[in-house]
């Protein structure tokens, strides 16, 4: 069964895109995700968690892919009675060769503690990742109001 979410109601925010090229992207991603989360009616904890996840994923892109090759697309989503915020992080970086290992705690490249990916997954309601060497990475996170 396909699910097609078409045209949000007039009261939902339209999608916003943030280019992840430099450190300033962090603030932009965080404040955009926060604004959307608030608008969707997420409480403080849920908001903080999804903003933190967004921050983690943005840092990941900044660290691992060459400049200007990443973007975050943030939108408000609806499913039945619930509203939420969905963010898609894409980069045209080197891609991850071993996704399983990357998603396991403690994996690290380039000297980072590597809490980024597995950590972000724990913080959000929905998390999906697609990556392949040479093809870049795409992470989709979604957080719903309770």
């Amino acid at each position: 069964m396909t699910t097609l979410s078409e045209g949000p109601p007039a009261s939902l925010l339209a999608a916003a895109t943030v280019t992840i090229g430099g450190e300033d992207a962090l603030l932009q991603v965080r404040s955009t995700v926060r604004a959307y989360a608030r608008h969707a009616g997420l409480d403080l904890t849920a908001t903080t968690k999804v903003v933190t996840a967004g921050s983690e994923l943005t840092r990941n892109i900044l660290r691992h892919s060459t400049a200007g090759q990443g973007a975050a697309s943030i939108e408000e989503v609806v499913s039945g009675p619930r509203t939420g915020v969905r963010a898609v992080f894409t980069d045209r970086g080197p891609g991850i060769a071993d996704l399983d290992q990357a998603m396991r705690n403690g994996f690290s490249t380039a000297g980072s503690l590597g809490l980024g990916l597995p950590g972000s997954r724990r913080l959000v309601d929905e998390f999906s990742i697609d990556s392949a060497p040479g093809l870049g990475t795409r992470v989709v996170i979604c957080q719903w109001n309770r």
Partner: protein
Amino acid sequence: MRMGPDLLVTLQGDLDDLTVESIERQVTSEIARTGAHGALIDVSSLDVVDSFVARVLARLVRMVRLLGADAAIVGIRPAVAITLVELGVSMADVTTALNAEQGMTRLRRLRAGTSAGIRHDDPQ
């Protein structure tokens, strides 16, 4: 900035690698110069503490301790505390407090306790 015998370090805004490096330099040189017994790292203005920031904090604490001083992280917000626990960042061996004043008191007790032979790994 001094708070009694302790150094107050306030982290705010966006922390990028350059800013962090600069803070580390400032903190270590200040402690060495003034002989401060403790450093209070105030994060009360941070509404997001991701694993990068958590690492920055851990490194600052290590540096402070290597210089013979104690460190306390103060002002972690409720939502941030919940997020950190979920991220698996426990910071179990670091003194924490609600604010700088409480932090100062804790560090003082820690010092008094240490001198009285109480173990260092029970900061609370």
